[in-house]
């Protein structure tokens, strides 16, 4: 999405800390964590399908970009 320009606008904004920060982190990491666990569970019986779980996590982490 078109958010890159907005990042520079808000880069100097104050960052909330404490519980708010922890909540964001938990939410952003819970999905990839679930994907990694699913991938690990699939890795031995079906390594090919483990790559599908890998793909899902790779897609989620693209959230870090524009």
């Amino acid at each position, binding site marked *: *999405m*078109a*958010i*890159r320009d*907005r*990042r520079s*606008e*808000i*880069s100097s*904004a104050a*960052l909330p800390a404490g519980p708010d*920060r922890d909540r*964001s*982190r938990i*939410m*952003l*990491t819970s*999905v*990839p*964590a679930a*994907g*990694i666990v699913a*991938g*690990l569970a*699939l*890795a*031995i019986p079906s*390594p*090919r399908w*483990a*790559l*599908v*779980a*890998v*793909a*899902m*996590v*790779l*897609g*989620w*982490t*693209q*959230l*870090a*970009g*524009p």
Partner: protein
Amino acid sequence: VALTPLVKVAGRRREWLANVSAYTVAGTVTSSLVGAALGAGGALVNAGRVGSLGVAAATLAISIVLFTRELGWPPVPVPQLRRQTRARWGSDLPGAVVAALWGGDVGLTFSTYLTFSGAWLLVAVAVLTASPAFGVALFAAYWSGRAASVWASPLLLPGAGAGAVLVQRVNRNQAVLRRAHIAALGLSVLATAWLLARAMP
């Protein structure tokens, strides 16, 4: 950011649902087409002739290169188009239409910025396996991760006028997301190493 704030506006949740659904469906279609095309391309050049051992070895090698690249070595830029979806569509077109256009565009995977290198692993695997169906599975899964972040983003948004906060919350967790990306590439290394060990005579 453009799609999410509506969910926090009283009476407009249905509109948000329609827009995000249009975004998701359009992206699923284009991502699947990309995966199918790569798998078909692999079949066309007969990439499968390397055999399951060759596919596993090549996938393992590429996974290791991308894994170490994300750890900082080699410090090479990710090959990509430095382009974003057109924000202008949002002012010119109805909500669901523009959401579908954005989803379709982002779903093409390589038509917009890539923050990390992992998408190239999927290209390699889709081509090497020479299977359009598996290419669809890989790219649809990749898109499901991208679209899931849009579905989940209201959880990071305190109010309708707080799009900037959403960006801020994602930005300050960039290192965490990078680590998750590295972990996924590490999992690919493990899975393909196991595949290779199994395929060896």
